[in-house]
């Protein structure tokens, strides 16, 4: 299943670990009372702490700690009751302190694991090495002025959760499946909005290659600036090929930071970062170690929602859905809740079909989310009830559905207004059939002479005559007896 690179000397395995920076959902920053809202006037959401004015002291936002713990629990990870903030020292214009407050030797969350869904329907477990809390830096704009860079500190001090995976990923598909699943979990937990376009979730890719069958890891490169799942896939494809060609050409991989250039579709070396890699971490003397009570951690655990993988397994088991259908339905919490509302007391597979094939299709076409659906879950349930009790046929139901989407009316009202009830009265159907058989003696003779295909013609005529309202099963049965 894993993607490989075919080189001149043989097949190469791609080994990937991802570092994801997820901005914790909170009103205020990790160490100050300034707002975290996106898109404000430059430098308007900056306190003296965030601007690193002399003498200002950081005070930890308790809710950010809770968000990190909640995320750790959602990643099935060990929560460390003792963790330490350290200073990571480097110089950059958007880092006013000259250091980033981060966690290094003692992160708040230790090892965990999440499941990713492989295209062949199997499940692969991906190890999480750690999650630690840290401050975000400000933002530099390089394209506003020919000779200047502009610095906005609004983002400076926002709480980030850095989630580091084990090098368990074996290609671009697995990397994007991992990112999708991680984002889904964060959204279920409501600890990060997962919005890659606004930068509230960002990924660095650590990649190395090794000959197939080799157990030792190759030298890795870290690729930065990959800001979408698409970019992650493209950067992986490019970088894996580059490394294989370099090694096969007799070269050696240098452990370095590389930058993904989306315009050129290449990764390039960021030599300037190398010197800065000596971060000289030390415990931040302004902040005491974080000590948590296990009772408090358990209280948070009690409040966790059902997570995507649990929900998926339950949908398959309790509703008898396929893995594919279950995966589509659980991808958003609101979507899963909608489905469960529709399925309650009804045929779950029928409910899944209507939600996935009809509703999601139409919502998607109209650029709407499930929360904006003009058809509520009880309304869609009402339509399905009309199909199940044979008031309308499945074919008519699609027309009714389209009108419900358009008008927001109940299915029963539309069916009544337009007189769309299915004709199940066999006497009435029989009368129509007799009429049609009498009007088409040639075709009746041809059918009896062996032209079986004409059966469809008769069904079509009956449906035309009854405006699609005749119960198809009854039509088939009566036609068979009459023509038999």
């Amino acid at each position, binding site marked *: 299943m894993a993607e490989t690179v075919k080189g001149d000397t043989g097949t190469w395995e791609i080994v990937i670990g991802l570092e994801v920076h997820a901005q914790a959902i909170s009103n205020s920053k990790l160490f100050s009372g300034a707002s975290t809202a996106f898109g404000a006037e430059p430098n308007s959401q900056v306190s003296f702490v965030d601007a690193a004015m002399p003498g200002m002291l950081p005070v930890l936002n308790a809710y950010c700690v809770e968000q990190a713990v909640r995320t750790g629990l959602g990643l099935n990870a060990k929560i460390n009751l003792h963790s330490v903030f350290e200073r990571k020292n480097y110089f950059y214009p958007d880092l006013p302190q000259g250091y980033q407050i981060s966690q290094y030797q003692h992160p708040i969350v230790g090892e965990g694991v999440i499941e990713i869904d492989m295209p062949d329907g199997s499940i692969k477990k991906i190890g999480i090495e750690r999650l630690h809390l840290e401050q975000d830096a400000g933002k530099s704009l390089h394209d506003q002025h*020919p000779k200047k860079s502009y610095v906005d500190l609004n983002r400076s001090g926002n709480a980030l959760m850095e989630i580091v995976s084990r090098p368990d990923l074996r290609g671009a598909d697995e990397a994007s499946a991992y990112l999708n699943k991680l984002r889904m979990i964060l959204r279920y937990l409501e600890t990060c909005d997962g919005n890659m376009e606004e930068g509230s979730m960002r990924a660095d890719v650590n990649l190395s290659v090794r000959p197939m069958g080799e157990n030792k890891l190759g030298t890795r490169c870290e690729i930065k600036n990959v800001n979408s799942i698409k970019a992650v896939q493209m950067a992986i494809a490019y970088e894996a090929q580059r490394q294989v060609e370099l090694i096969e050409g007799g070269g050696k991989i240098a452990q370095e930071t590389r930058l993904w250039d989306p315009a050129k579709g290449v990764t390039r070396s960021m030599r300037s970062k190398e010197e800065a890699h000596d971060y000289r971490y030390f415990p931040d003397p302004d902040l005491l170690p974080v000590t948590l009570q296990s009772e408090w951690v358990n209280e948070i655990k009690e409040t966790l929602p059902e997570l995507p993988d649990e929900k998926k397994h339950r949908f398959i088991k309790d509703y008898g859905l396929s893995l594919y259908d279950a995966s589509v339905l659980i991808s958003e919490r609101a979507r899963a809740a909608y489905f469960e509302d529709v399925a309650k007391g009804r045929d779950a597979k029928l409910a899944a079909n209507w939600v996935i094939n009809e509703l999601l299709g139409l919502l998607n076409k109209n650029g709407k989310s499930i929360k904006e659906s003009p058809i509520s879950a009880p309304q869609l349930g009402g339509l399905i009830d009309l199909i199940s009790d044979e008031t309308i046929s499945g074919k008519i139901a699609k027309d009714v559905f389209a009108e419900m989407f358009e008008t927001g009316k109940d299915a029963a009202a539309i069916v009544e207004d337009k007189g769309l009830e299915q004709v199940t009265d066999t006497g009435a159907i029989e009368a129509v059939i007799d009429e049609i058989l009498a009007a088409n003696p040639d075709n009746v003779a041809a059918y009896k002479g062996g032209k079986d295909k004409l059966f469809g013609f008769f069904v079509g005529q009956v449906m035309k005559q009854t405006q699609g309202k005749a119960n198809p099963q009854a039509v088939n049965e009566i036609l068979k007896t009459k023509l038999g």
Partner: protein
Amino acid sequence: MSMDKETVRKVASLARLRVTEEELDKFAPQLSGILEWIEQLGELDTSNVEPLSNVVDIAPVSRQDEINDGNIQSAILANAPEAQSGYFTVPKIIEQADN
């Protein structure tokens, strides 16, 4: 542990401090002396002692998640050597990329 001139040069460069050759000759033995002095602490057996992170016995302080700061753009920019349109401006940062 003694510090040679090269180490001092590296530490100074990481801290963005410009030092002359003569200063390196002076600082290397001084810094070595400081380190050796501190290293005397290593003679104590601390294998059964928890690292000390807090000399006064106070519980860690934390904040509620409330917005009660910010909206002081002009104060934030007041001491900036240069600012434009609400941004700090600095000499252009050019990422030294090659390959």
